[in-house]
Structure formats: C-alpha cells, structure tokens
C-alpha cells in the first residue's frame, strides 16, 4: 500500500494543436517501425522495399493515382453523407443501402429512358431519382425514429439488406443478355447517361463534385442554422425542445440530407465510373465511411485526410500482396497495425501520463 505508483493517468483539459499533431505523427512513425519489424520477421523481406511498394501501388503511375483519387472521392462522399447524421447522434449504418438505392435509381433511369430523352435531361433525371432514392431509404428509419423512437442503428442496418435484395431483383429483370445474371455495361453503345469526361480524365469529374460537396457539408454543419439545430438535437433533445427546435423535423430533415448524399455516391458510381449495377457496387463503403467519419470526429475537412489514409492503406496492401506474392491477409495485418496506432494515439491526446518522481524525503 505504501508503494508509490509508477504512473498515473489523468484527463487532459486541453491540448495544444501542434502537440496533438506531433503525437499523431509519432504514432504513424511507430506504426511503420512495428510493421517493419513484423514484415522482416514474418517474411524476411526488407521493410523499406515493402513500404516503397505500397507507395508505388498508390501513386506509382498516373492510372494508379487516379484510381486512388477516385476511391478517395467515393469513400469521402459517403463519409460526409454520414457526418450530419452522426453529429446528430443518429447512428446511420445504412450508408451502403442508401448509396445502393441511389445507384439503382440512376441505373433504372439509364436503362428505362436512356434512349427516349436527350442526354442532358437524362442526367438531370438520374440526379433527381438517385437523390430521392437515397433520401427515401434514410427517411424511412428517420421517420420511425422521430415518430416512435425506434432504434435507428438496427433499422438503418436492416435497410441495407432490403436494398441489396431489391438490386438483386432488378439485376435479373434487366439482365443482359438473358440468363447472364448480370447487367453488364449500361448503354455501352449510346453512352446515354454517362457523365461527361472533364479534362479528358474519367475520374476528374467525380473528384471535383465530391470536393465541392465536402466544402458545402462543412459549411452546412458549422455555419448554418440547420447545422446548429442538428448539433443541439444531438447533444440534448430536451434542450432542443426547450428552445423551440422541432426535434422530429430536424431528425427527418437531417437524415433526408444524409440519405440524399449517399444517393449521390451511388449516382457517381453508376453515372461517373462503373456504368453498371451490381449488388456489391458500394462494397461496404457505407461501413468504412463510419470509421472515416469517427476518426475525423465528424469534421468533413478532416475526413479528406482520414479517407485518404484508409484508401491508401487498402491500395498499398493490395499492391504488396501481388508484388511479393504474399497472402492477402498480410496486407490486412499491416493495415490493422497502422490503424491500431492511429486510433490508439487518441488515448494520449485525451489523457496525460505522469511518471512519479522519486518521493521527496520527509523532513
């Protein structure tokens, strides 16, 4: 009992931002060192070469760079869609389904009226339909939450499976050729509903759209009355009611926005890049987006960094498994270690560790 504890931990009140970033940088550096050691022990490879391969995989060629940017754009788009809902403490785990519904809306427009209206009108219809589809998919759980206080986490999660089944159904309805079980490239000959290429780059338009949306969501959340309202609702519903904020309306409105942005993600995938519809089109980004949003503390601008980090790790991991003929799991191990350190450093940002000095002599 008389032993002086070696360390004790206290909560930090505030941390200077330079120091906070220093902690983060140290965390990344430590992660790289640990990964290096494990790489050497497990595979005998030179870790420097492995890292070089990761960077090469992400930035190596202009095609890789564009793939990286495209992936960041899509992940970021779905993450900023989740941000307002999360700020409102509405745990929208239905990003996948909402984006898929947006994709379904866009694909349906392309297939059903692709050759009946001029291209500009088609694209306009695609935008409207996919936004509405995404908003609808988020609006349903929001309505139930607002009206009967149902659990939004389960509700939005379940809506994902409904969306997947709906898409699976329509894939069979619209399959080309009959019996193929898939849609293939939509309007391959007419390119109707394909987004125009900007600057000769297939992915540039998506990157521009998502950049603009990110800034808009940032402004919406931090500088508008509606953004303020949703923060108050998230922090304390009684306070919101007390000052006359219509809580139900704010919940539904915010989720419509969240779903609409998810719908845009689906639209960008169908109209902008993939030009097809599959049940795995969104590929779990609705969940990865949750991590991106949390890591960035729901700040859309920080999400640029966190989504870059995650996409970079994913692409780098894929690259090293092919280059060095390693098991796919090895890339996951590296990704896991790096994320562990980055998330773990939050502890050091929130808490301070004191090492007990040798006790003063009692006079």
């Amino acid at each position: 009992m008389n032993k002086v504890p070696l360390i004790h931990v206290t909560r930090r009140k505030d941390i200077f931002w330079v120091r906070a970033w220093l902690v983060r940088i140290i965390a990344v550096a430590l992660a790289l060192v640990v990964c290096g050691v494990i790489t050497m022990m497990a595979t005998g490879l030179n870790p420097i070469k492995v890292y070089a391969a990761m960077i090469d995989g992400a930035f190596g060629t202009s095609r890789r760079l564009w793939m990286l940017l495209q992936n960041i754009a899509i992940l970021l788009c779905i993450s900023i869609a989740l941000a307002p809902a999360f700020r409102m403490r509405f745990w929208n785990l239905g990003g996948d389904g909402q984006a898929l519904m947006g994709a379904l809306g866009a694909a349906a427009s392309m297939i059903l009226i692709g050759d009946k209206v001029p291209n500009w009108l088609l694209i306009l219809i695609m935008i409207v339909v996919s936004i509405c589809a995404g908003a609808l998919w988020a609006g349903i759980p929001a309505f139930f939450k607002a009206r009967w206080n149902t659990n939004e986490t389960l509700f939005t999660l379940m809506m994902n499976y409904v969306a997947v089944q709906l898409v699976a159904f329509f894939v069979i309805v619209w399959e080309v050729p009959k019996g193929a079980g898939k849609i293939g490239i939509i309007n391959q000959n007419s390119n109707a509903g394909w987004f125009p290429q900007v600057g000769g780059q297939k992915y540039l338009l998506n990157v521009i759209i998502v950049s603009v949306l990110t800034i808009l969501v940032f402004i919406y959340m931090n500088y508008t009355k509606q953004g303020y309202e949703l923060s108050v609702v998230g922090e304390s519903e009684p306070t919101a009611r007390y000052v006359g904020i219509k809580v139900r309306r704010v919940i539904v409105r915010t989720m419509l926005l969240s779903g609409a942005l998810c719908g845009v993600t689906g639209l960008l995938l169908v109209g902008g890049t993939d030009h097809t519809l599959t049940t795995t089109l969104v590929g779990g980004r609705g969940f990865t987006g949750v991590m991106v949003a949390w890591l960035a503390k729901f700040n859309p601008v920080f999400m640029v960094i966190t989504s870059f980090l995650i996409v970079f790790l994913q692409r780098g991991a894929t690259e090293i498994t092919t280059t060095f003929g390693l098991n796919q799991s090895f890339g996951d191990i590296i990704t896991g270690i790096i994320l562990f350190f980055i998330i773990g450093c939050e502890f050091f940002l929130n808490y301070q560790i004191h090492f007990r000095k040798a006790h003063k002599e009692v006079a």
Partner: protein
Amino acid sequence: MERSPVIELKHITKRFGNNIANDDVSMEVYEGEILALLGENGSGKTTLMNALAGIYYPEDGQIFVRGREVNIHSPRTAFDLGIGMIHQHFKLVDVLTAVENIILGLNEKSRYDLKAAAARITEICDRYGFHVDPFQKIYTMSVSQKQTVEIVKVLFRGADLLILDEPTAVLTPQETEKLFNVLRNMKADGKSIIIITHKLNEVLEISDRVAILRKGKYICEIKTSEASVQQLTDAMVGHAVTLNIDRPVPVDPKDKIIVEHLTIRNSDGVAKLKDISFTARTGEILGIAGISGNGQKELLEGIAGLQKIESGSIRFVDDNGKETELVGMDPRKITDMGVTLSFVPEDRLGMGLVGNMNLGENMMLRTFRHSGGPFIDRKEPFHLAKRVIESLEVVTPSVKTAVRKLSGGNVQKVLVGREISSSPTVLLTAYAVRGLDINSSYLIYDLVNQQKKQGVAVVYVGEDLDVLLELCDRILVLCDGQVSAILDARKTDKQQVGLLMTKLGGEAANE
C-alpha cells in the same frame, strides 16, 4: 483530551492543466468528529476529498492514515483504508436492488450471498437509525432513499471515515433532519465524518469543526461552537458580505399569467398537477413551495409549453389587457406570439444549456433564429456571452470554453444571464440557487429582484423556505400536485408553510 488524527493531509497540491485546484492544503480529521468543509464553488473542496477517496491523484503532498503514510491510487485503496465517499451524483445501478448495488464490486472469493448481505444491511441500518429495504430496486426509490443506499454501501465496506459531498442539496428539510440524526449516531459510534457544504445553518447545526477553503487554499479552521454565520461567510468569501435579501414592495401589480384548472399527466398517466389555479402578476415574485416532485417541474414546463396539458387554461395577458391562450403552443409558437417568456429549468445542463458547446454557442440557443437567411450569426451571441461574463462575474477561461467544464454556480450564471438578456415579461425559475454558494446565491436573488423591479412577473420555485419567505411576495404551496394554499409571504412563517407542504390545506394544524 488529546486525540490523534485519523487522517492527516500534508501539503496536498492538485493541478488541472494550468488551474490549481488545491494549493498546498494541510488539514487533519479526528476520530468521532464531524468536520464541515466549507468553501465557495470551485474552491477545491470536492477535489481535495476526491484525492482522499482515490479518484484523483495529487501531484504533490502526503496523506497519513492513523499516522502511516499512504498512497491512495484507486477507490479500492481508499476503501481498504476505511475511507468512503458519498458523491453528489449517486453512483448506483438503477435496475438493481439496494443489496445488489451494495455488494457490487466487492471482491469476494465465494459466491454472493444476498441474504447474508441483506441481514448485514439491516443490522447497519438499525445501528444508525435509518431504513433501507435491501430488495427494493433503485429506480423506484426517492432521492433520499438512494442517498441512504450510498451511505450504507460505504458503511458495509467498513468505512470509518465518511465523506459526504453536498448531501443536503437534494433533500427536504425533514429528510435533512433525518440524515443529521444518522450522522450524529455515527459520530457517537466513533466514526469520523467530513461533510462538504456551503449551507451555513447546516454547518452550525451538525459540525464540530469547520475547515474553510478559498480558491484552492486552506484558509482557517474554526470551532463550530465559536463560529457565527457572518464570520464563516466572510472567511469563505474573503470579504464582508451582507446577508439580507431585498424585498421591494410590488409596484402596480397587474395580472400577467392566469392559470385556471390546470391538470397535467406524465407519460405514465399519473396526474402530476390536479386542477391548479393561480395568477402571476407583474412586478411580483410568486414563490412555489413544496416537497420536490410535487408538480413544480410540470407546472413550469407546462407554462413554458413543454408539457402536454390535459385540461385547463394558461392565459398570457399583454400590456393592453388582451388575453392569449398558451395551452397547445410549443415554445417556438409562444415566442413567435411575442410572449417573451424566460425559463431557467431545474436541469441546467440537461435542458437549459448544451454542456459540450461553448458559452457563445449557448447564448445562441435562444436567438439563433432571429437573424435572416440560412446562416448563423455568431458575433452577437459572443458579445452577449462576454457581457454576461463581465456583469455576472462568471469564472471561465474564455467564451470558447465548453459550459460543462464550468463549476455549477458559473453554469447557472450563464443560464440566468442568457434568460434575462431577452428582457422577459415572465421569468420562470426552478431551484435557481441549487448547488450554488452563498455569493452566487445572493447574486441570483439580486438579479431576480432586478427583474421584479422592472415589472417582470417572476415565478420562483425554491426549496429553501427561509429564502422563499424573505424573497417572495406571495407563496403558492403545492402538495401532491394540488394547491395547498396561496399565502402572503410577509404574513406567514416556516411552520405554516411546512405544514401546508405535507398536508393539503394544512388540516393538521387544527388537529
């Protein structure tokens, strides 16, 4: 008689970032005494006791228990040393029973024996004169019962030094008396008790010695038998304070809020208010007295448009004598009607303010809709925050500090400051000085009086009868959701109000 100290604190220093919460504090506690730890909000009382209870670890200083130096690095160590703390916010699991809560976390090797534990609980209760049903679930208990469970929990673990953090803040006068009897029994049994408080009359009633902290520093200790209210106040505040509450005569009172036959049920269908009728007038303070939970909350929230009203009417009378029905309107509609109604609710951080937002952002809550366009005006609320900080002497690092980081008194000042900044015509306050120190309390009384002088109709729900009797013009006594009586505060006394609080219409007075 020379007694040896049970606990000795020597040169305890505890910092939070750049704030020094405890600055070189040394003090002792003896066996079989009740020590009152007195100080204003933020003077470091709770921090110091948390260091004893193993919640905080001081940067510097030594703690001796029965002459032996110890390091208390966890609440468990504190328990092993016989130190038990009853916190202001109870730490109980609502869905469990009393006995389950009490044995929770005890590191026994064998299986939990609830029956034996219950028997021991009953034994402890009998010894000190309180009552707990070991198998009652916590969520069905009143605040005072929960507090009893907390005390039993500490005794069950063999504590012989009990620290109580503001134990009377949530109790009625009768419950307080009961608690004090228990404390006296414990003292007779040789236990040492530290009671953190800033209610001076209680200090004088219960304690043997008073230790006073101010701004983290140990100021002095006084024998209670030799102390006076004025002396304690001055030592606590650091300068002389006048302890009189002003009560100007109402000027030209006019009816402002007319409540008739109001009935409100809670979500379980229980009637919290039954057929209430009264009138609040301009330039007058209408006090609401009653044991807590007798409909005070529902009454104020009903007027503010936050409660579903079953029947009755609440009418607002404007300056021209035109009456507007408020029943069925939400707070937004009430504001849009031009009724400037300010409301200081009981649960400051749960309803009045947003804890995670800073002072400026909290000022916006009321006014953010007023500016045109979709964007929010941040400038004006931050100016207002600065004005409130200045005029009400709010202690805060900056306007950009999250409100939850402020002490209770400062939180209340921010809330009251915002509510009166809109120059209201009606001011509703619920337990405006709960948990506030003497300086802050008198500041709040002054503010309420200022509003009264400006012709505001004030409805003041309070718990301290002495204050209600000094501050208010009329007092409405609630009992079981009904109006027990409406009294002229100048012509009544504590005895009468107390009776009306417990018996409808005070029939007991004639028995």
